[in-house]
């Protein structure tokens, strides 16, 4: 293998798997260390720089970071990264003095954002400090988008939402509530805006056209999941029947079943077509629902709505059976019977789509055959240069953290577009390394491996929580729990940096490594080299570090980054400091990092760590 090019910022970035997995590249180890030091405000600001809504995401993020967390490779459970984010948000002081401010002198460019969801709010957050005038059009009387309408308040309290949205709106955003955009053509015709960002989400829930669906007696008792959650959020729906069937097992289904329990239902079944393992819902959302005695019924495919005497009495299902192959994929399916389930209400939670009936065909904004807008995946620009898309509106339903990242990238594009620069010429990510060495065996980070297990989130008592719909179920970590959980982080951003010129091949690092991730061996091609490692290579997707040839024997030092616990013992045992522990700081460019030739004032920096 060729020596690893560690000058490529992506190499060390990939070692920080949580940060690599996060769409917005939140600097997870850094904020966890700040929490460990009790610096909650600083931890909050590190979060906010990349993910904008730490309080919200600390409760409801889809947490792509946690399955990626390396702690889960040497132990059963990953670090509770998401809930530690909430710890930072819960314990922060007033952060307003540290937030960027919009300059009094505007730069003369106006941007319209459609929909006040996380994507649009991020665009406003990034562009307002640069002097832009941002207008957000929102169809409801309150901002937040799906975060407001589709996430029940027992998971995300209203005041958390209001506070974090407030930080952005208070920059001076022209927020026009109750103002749905009904025609893109009209909006463009006003000539008021230099760029338009479409962050209107994926607001159309999928329907299930089975016999009986449109029977007049049934219609009032068959609900579309996201519309129903919206009505619940705005208080239009205050109750539901005693027996409820939820069709679908995504995260929306989980919110629907748990909301039902709070609106009078006591027999809620989630009906799944396929076996467990094919569910779309996150594991932890399933756990939370099952903890509330929701029954998840697998292998039942909906067949028809049963109407008796003009009234919905239940649903008929096909009972399914599947053959799985060795890898757990379905190779054959068949129906082995039918079954009736009685119910009072049915909620359909089988997916959602973006829909743009308000964008006219002749504007230059092109759609593909599935009516999905043609959007550049890097710049978020549509086929019309002044129209940008982001969030669920761009590529269909994802989640909040993706919407935030789309917003950041779209903001850069909008900024470049408004300054007549090429939107494709974007700043690269960068990476700084700085040694953590303080003394012979001392490092400026806590390098000892702490064998503590993952802390369990305390919940409101099962009886208590159903009394009102807005009782937040998760109580947040206690101080003791937070102090313990932060110690589980392996500090993956403190990198093992190797200098082949200094190595005397004494084997000290190889002998001391607790997880056997180092090997000194003759070079070879990757597949063959992976066979010769000191401990078996378990994850071929994690790149190997291969050094330049060593001086004495021309062998190479190979590090399998996969299970390194960053204890620093290789560096402590190295007599020549060929290994060093160096903290990597990944610099993600934002709109504020782009040059602003038209602005006389330098952009206010938002760097916090």
């Amino acid at each position: 293998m060729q020596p690893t090019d560690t000058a490529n910022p992506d190499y060390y970035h990939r070692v920080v798997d949580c940060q690599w997995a996060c769409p917005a590249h939140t600097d997870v180890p850094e904020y966890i260390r700040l929490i460990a030091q009790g610096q909650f405000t600083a931890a909050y600001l590190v979060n906010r720089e990349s993910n904008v809504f730490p309080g919200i995401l600390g409760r409801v993020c889809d947490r792509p970071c946690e399955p990626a967390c390396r702690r889960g490779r040497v132990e059963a459970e990953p670090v509770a990264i998401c809930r530690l984010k909430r710890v930072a948000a819960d314990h922060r002081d007033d952060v307003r003095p540290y937030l960027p401010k919009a300059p009094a002198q505007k730069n003369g460019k106006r941007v319209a954002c459609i929909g006040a969801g996380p994507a649009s709010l991020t665009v406003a957050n990034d562009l307002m400090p640069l002097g832009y005038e941002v207008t957000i059009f929102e169809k409801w009387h309150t901002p937040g988008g799906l975060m407001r309408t589709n996430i029940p308040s027992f998971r995300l309290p209203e005041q958390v939402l209001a506070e974090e949205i407030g930080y952005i709106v208070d920059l001076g955003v022209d927020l026009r509530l109750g103002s749905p955009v009904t025609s893109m053509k009209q909006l463009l015709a006003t000539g008021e805006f230099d760029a338009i960002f479409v962050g209107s989400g994926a607001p159309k829930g999928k329907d299930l056209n089975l016999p009986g669906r449109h029977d007049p007696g049934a219609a009032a008792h068959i609900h579309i999941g996201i519309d129903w959650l919206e009505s619940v959020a705005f208080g239009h729906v205050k109750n539901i029947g005693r027996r409820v069937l939820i069709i679908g097992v995504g995260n929306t289904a989980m919110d629907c079943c748990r909301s039902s329990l709070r609106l009078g239902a006591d027999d809620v079944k989630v009906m799944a077509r396929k076996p467990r393992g094919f569910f779309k819902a996150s594991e932890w959302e399933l756990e939370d629902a099952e903890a509330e005695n929701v029954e998840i019924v697998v292998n039942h495919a909906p067949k028809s709505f049963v109407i008796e005497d003009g009234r919905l009495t239940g649903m008929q299902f096909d009972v399914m059976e599947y053959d799985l192959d060795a890898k757990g994929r379905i190779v054959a399916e068949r129906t082995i019977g039918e079954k009736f389930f009685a119910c009072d209400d049915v909620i359909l939670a089988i997916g959602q789509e973006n829909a743009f009936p308000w964008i006219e065909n002749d504007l230059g904004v092109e759609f593909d055959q599935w009516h999905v807008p043609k959007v550049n995946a890097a710049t978020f620009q549509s086929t019309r240069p002044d129209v940008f898309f982001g969030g669920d509106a761009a590529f269909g339903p994802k989640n909040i953290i993706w919407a935030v990242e789309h917003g950041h990238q779209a903001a850069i594009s909008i900024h470049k577009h408004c300054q007549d620069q090429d939107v494709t010429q974007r700043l690269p990510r960068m990476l700084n390394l700085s040694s953590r060495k303080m003394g012979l065996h001392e490092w400026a980070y806590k390098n000892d491996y702490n064998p503590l297990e993952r802390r369990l989130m305390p919940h409101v008592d099962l009886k208590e929580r159903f009394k009102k719909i807005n009782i937040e179920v998760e109580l947040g970590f206690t101080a003791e729990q937070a102090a313990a959980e932060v110690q589980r982080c392996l500090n993956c951003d403190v990198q093992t940096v190797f200098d082949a010129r200094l190595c005397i091949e004494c084997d000290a690092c190889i002998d001391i490594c607790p997880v056997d991730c180092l090997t000194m061996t003759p070079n070879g091609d990757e597949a063959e080299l992976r066979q010769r490692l000191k401990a078996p290579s378990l994850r071929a997707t994690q790149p190997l570090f291969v050094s330049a040839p060593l001086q004495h024997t021309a062998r190479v030092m190979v590090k399998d980054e996969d299970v390194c616990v960053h204890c620093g013992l290789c560096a402590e045992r190295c007599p020549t400091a060929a290994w060093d522990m160096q903290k990597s700081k990944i610099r993600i460019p934002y709109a504020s990092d782009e040059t602003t030739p038209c602005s006389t004032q330098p952009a206010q920096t938002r760097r916090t760590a």
Partner: protein
Amino acid sequence: MSFIAKPKIAHPGLPKNELGLTRRDYEGSMSTLCAGCGHDSITAAVIEACWQMSMRPEQLVKLSGIGCSSKTTAYFVSGGHGFNSVHGRMPSIATGAIAANKDLHYIGVSGDGDTLSIGFGQFAHAMRRNLNMLYIVENNGVYGLTKGQFSASADIGSKAKKGEENLQPPIDPVLAALTLGGTFVARSFSGDKEQLVPLIIAGLKHRGFALIDVLSPCVTFNDHEGSTKSYEFVRDHYDEVVHADFVPPAREITAQYAQGDTMPVTMHDGSLILLRKLDPSYDPRHRGQAFNYLRDKLAQNEFVTGLIYIDEKSPDFHEVSGTTATPVNQLPFAKLTPGSKGLEKILSRYR
């Protein structure tokens, strides 16, 4: 040394031996030697060898004298028995222990000072008795614990850290062992575990006294330019003559070596050591030839390494001395003591 202990966390895919133990289960306490010390690598090789042999930790006896080298018995197989004896007197303790219990594996770890200076007499007699043990000399050519004076194994012309040259001829433990009648004589290098690990296994399986002289650079006092025991010098003057591959009983010999250059040696427990001759003219069963070969190579400044001499036929200490087959601690009390009448009978013989 380090301030933190080696975390008790292991690679999830770490292989297990016949006892279901991983390499980590054969570790000892945290080393307090200098970072980069060759001795730590030898410790790792001993751990690897014991693991590969699927040795029950309590079957191992670790014996040592005084010195940096003699500290290392604390750093492997913490489940074994240990005795850290007086300087240079480890072979006496070993003799007693081996006489009392022949069921255990014995590893003596010593240094060039402990073996070739203060303990030279003991070393010679242990070999003469053909004690059934593995004796490792962790040889770095200096007294590390007293800050780097030349030891008896320092080569002529080797320079100390401050620059003075050694003018006295060295005692070579391998040449000494060949003349003293050693039945298993090997040399290796701490930086070559591929060679060292099978040698340790072979040495533990050998019936009689197995000596491995391991060149083990002192990273603090003897790893500079001009030293003949530095990592760089040893690597540059390293000549492996016979490589020993340990073949566990279950595994078949795959004919991957050139015919004639491979020599299987059956150990007394039935296991096989496959000797791979890197110099085809060399015969590791010929003591005189071995001695001459070593002398010639030494004159060329070459360290001959590998399994230099092996003799599986000579009687060991147990055979010559007629030691008890049952370990003394398993003999009933009545058998161990003659009783007052018996004692009287014995004493009367001397009256």
